[in-house]
């Protein structure tokens, strides 16, 4: 357990605090005066003069981290030589030149706005100047006595302050508030930064999909070790597993590939969603229990997600989506991550999930921001956020891939919101055509059906106006919506539509 000389002075430390071990004593009596005297022969190999420790501290003090190893080597050499030449106690370390590598300037970069680390939120800084002084080892020769003297002085100060109470309920920590323990530990706002520097911190990148991972990792735990299936039947009904899977009923990948082809054909021919959904679920289950994560897995999930979208089954779609996000983030080749990221943005619009929306915005890479589907989804998001229904319905009619199906899930809600604004602002009425066009209806009949469905049918009125001039003047029927009267109806419908969305499997 003998410490090598360079270790004792902080081989692992980036910077060395100006700390000096207090000599072993068994009484609280007078402090010994041995501090800077050469110790006995036995201790010579392992003990450093305080001045040398201060020298080491000074060396690491301003040492740029990239030079650290270089400095360590140089320092080790200097110290070992000093020990070997028996000059360690005679060199005047306070004026001894520092190793050259340590004298190069370092650039200190700190992230100003990092909310999540350190103690920055407590506004009282604890006398950094005192800390610094100690750290610099300005008083290398008398620290031994200093520690105890300081404490004693502080002790007497506390006794005199003990009866202080200036508020109704005096806070118990009040009495010690003037204390300064900087001679013993570096607390205060930058304590963590010191630790960061002392025990080098490596930067890691943050992955925004962590929630998917934690969900998924439950299945990856050793309790669910992968199995290899032996079943060769193509079709299988879905059953939720309640015990360990039986290899005899699980299909291996080459069988599953055939299953997928079969299901694709059947879906085209029969379009029977409940059958298809059930089959896909069992297919996914077989993939999971065998820990199959490859381009085939991605393909299966993507196809199921698209079918679910087409049928408006958002619960099932969302399960696929979250697995896909996980698979994409593991960089499994194949698949269409951009397409599905765009869907996710639209889906979050539907669920009004602002915090996840924020997360996904934060996760977008420059390449993703160039993708057509993602650009479309972002434009939709912007239009919804600003209430720009004109733009929104244009985007609805021009949705890439299957985005339109997803937008269907909240299109009615947006229509009601738009109608509320229209009814509030147009007087005395608004042409029926205008609504059909602005709210992305395919034709007047569809628009009328929508209004009737929301109990606003009675506000559609036919008005007679004159058209043309002179002899050609004729009476024309004009269909309008009575905005003022319809106002409350749409307000109520809108409020109901925006009530919290709750879907099973939602994350």
């Amino acid at each position: 357990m003998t410490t090598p000389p360079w270790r004792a002075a902080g081989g692992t430390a980036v910077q060395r605090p100006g700390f000096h071990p207090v000599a072993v004593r068994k009484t609280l009596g007078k402090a010994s005066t041995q501090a800077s005297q050469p110790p006995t022969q036995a201790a010579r190999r392992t003990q450093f003069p305080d001045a040398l420790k201060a020298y080491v501290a000074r060396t690491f003090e301003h040492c740029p981290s990239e030079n650290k190893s270089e400095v360590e080597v140089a320092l080790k050499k200097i110290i070992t030589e000093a020990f070997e030449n028996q000059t360690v106690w005679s060199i005047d370390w306070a004026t001894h030149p520092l190793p050259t590598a340590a004298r190069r300037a370092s650039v200190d970069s700190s992230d100003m706005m990092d909310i999540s680390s350190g103690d920055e939120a407590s506004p009282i800084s604890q006398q950094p100047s005192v800390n610094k002084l100690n750290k610099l080892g300005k008083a290398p020769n008398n620290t031994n006595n200093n520690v105890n003297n300081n404490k004693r002085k502080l002790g007497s100060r506390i006794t005199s302050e003990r009866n202080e109470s200036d508020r109704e309920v005096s806070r118990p920590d009040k009495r010690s508030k003037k204390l300064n323990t900087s001679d013993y530990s570096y607390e205060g706002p930058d304590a963590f930064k010191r630790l960061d520097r002392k025990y080098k911190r490596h930067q890691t990148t943050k992955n925004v999909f962590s929630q998917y991972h934690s969900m998924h990792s439950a299945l990856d735990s050793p309790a669910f070790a992968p199995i290899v299936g032996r079943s060769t039947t193509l079709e299988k009904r879905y059953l939720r597993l309640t015990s360990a899977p039986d290899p005899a009923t699980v299909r291996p990948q080459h069988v599953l590939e055939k299953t997928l082809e079969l299901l694709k054909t059947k879906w085209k021919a029969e379009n029977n969603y409940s059958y298809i959904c059930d089959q896909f679920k069992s297919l996914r289950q077989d993939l999971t229990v065998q820990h199959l994560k490859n381009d085939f897995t991605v393909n299966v999930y993507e196809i199921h997600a698209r079918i679910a979208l087409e049928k408006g089954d958002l619960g099932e779609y969302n399960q696929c989506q979250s697995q896909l996000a996980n698979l994409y983030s593991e960089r499994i080749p194949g698949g269409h991550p951009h397409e599905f990221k765009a869907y996710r943005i639209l889906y979050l619009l539907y669920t009004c999930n602002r915090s996840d929306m924020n997360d996904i915005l934060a996760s977008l890479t420059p390449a993703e921001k160039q993708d057509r589907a993602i650009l479309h989804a972002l434009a939709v998001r912007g239009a919804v956020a600003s209430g720009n229904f004109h733009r929104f319905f244009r985007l609805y009619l021009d949705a890439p891939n299957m985005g339109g199906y997803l937008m269907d899930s909240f299109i009615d809600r947006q229509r009601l919101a738009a109608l509320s604004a229209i009814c509030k602002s147009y007087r005395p009425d608004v042409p029926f055509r205008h609504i059909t066009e602005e709210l992305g209806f395919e034709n007047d009949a569809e628009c009328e059906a929508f209004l009737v469905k929301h109990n606003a049918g009675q506000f559609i009125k036919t008005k007679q106006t004159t058209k043309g001039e002179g002899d050609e003047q004729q009476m024309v029927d004009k269909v309008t919506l009575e905005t003022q009267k319809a106002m409350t109806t749409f307000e109520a419908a809108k409020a109901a539509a925006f009530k919290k969305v709750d879907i099973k499997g939602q994350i």
Partner: protein
Amino acid sequence: MESLIRAWRLAHVEENGKLLASTISLTNTDLEEFAYSTNSARVAEDIFRALEYENNSARPKITNKNGLEAWAEVYVAFWKVSQSLERYDEVEWGQVFTGMKDLTQAVIRGFQNSGWEVWALEVLYTACKYLRYVAIRADEAKRAEGEDAWKQLEEAARIINRAFNVCLNDRAELAQSRKWGTYYIINLLFKTYFKLNAITLSKNILKALVANTTEMPDLLSFRTSDIVTFKYYCGVIAFLDEDYFKAEEHLEMAYKLCHKDAQKNKELILTYLIPTKLLTRRQLPSATLLKPHPSLEALFLPLARCIKDGDLRGYDEYLAKGEDWFVKKRIFLTLERGRDITLRNLFRKVYLAAGESKTRIPVDHFRAAVSWKSGVDVETEEVECFLANMMYKGYIKGYISRERGMVVLSGTNAFPNPSNTS
């Protein structure tokens, strides 16, 4: 080891919480000496002996045998921490974390079972504080190896949560109650939950606090640093909940109480207070307010100027410019609503340009203004959509006559003063 245990005695004699806490601090200047002062075979015995020696070395005695055992547990755990930090070339943070957990749990037990007094709360603070730090380092190490979770930080959060309950549920008389430690621990929990992106858990803490509020000392009698941090987090939680009026209240208090030199904390508070005020009062930050904070100034000041001038293109540009940071701080989606205010200010300029008494203004004038200021040719329908939204939100009083292509504005106060509406 001796100096450490001597400090333990001294701290008890003086009832000096800070000094006592420093004996289990990772920044303790004796950490390395302590790490090398014993070995794993002897540590329990050595520490108990040292404690016993100091306990009996003079009058008064600090504690009895059970009390010594409680402290011995703490220092044995601390020794494990110190040796995993100091005695290896490459620190294994998972191992440090295991030691730190033992340490924190021993401290919590000390308060719960061994009657440690309220002056020693600093020890609990220090243990929890470094537990969190070490957990983050341990998780970061795992993440560097490709694992993607904050398992150890989650574990730390559970332990700190226990510390919270130990403080909150102390029934001792107020002057001697651990309730005085509640807010410090809450703040630590908030910080942890935010890092874990588990903000709902913060709300559970607030609920537990409200349920106990009658027996709690008034918030203002706690340390100001605790109040500021607490109010800041309450404000951010309300902000993320889109409860902007509540957020404004909390954040304003935090800002007012914040130490005048704590620039960074002020910046953190302003980051949320500025967007909040934009929504609640449609108030823009002044140049003087932003002056001491160059990083905020660079982002918010041009944005505020564009909003004021109705400069849509400038607004979009500056919002896009700061987007990454805004999104990271979760204020983007709120700031985005400033576009409405920009539009409103632009429309008001159209109204003023038309002449004081004019209440009928062609939609086309508004269209021209929007096209000019956004640099994009917009359609009449889109401008009508903007106008409709303004009227719906009460930013403009009046109506659109589609037949005539006119906007008819209210004769009085067509653009109500922002701070009085909404």
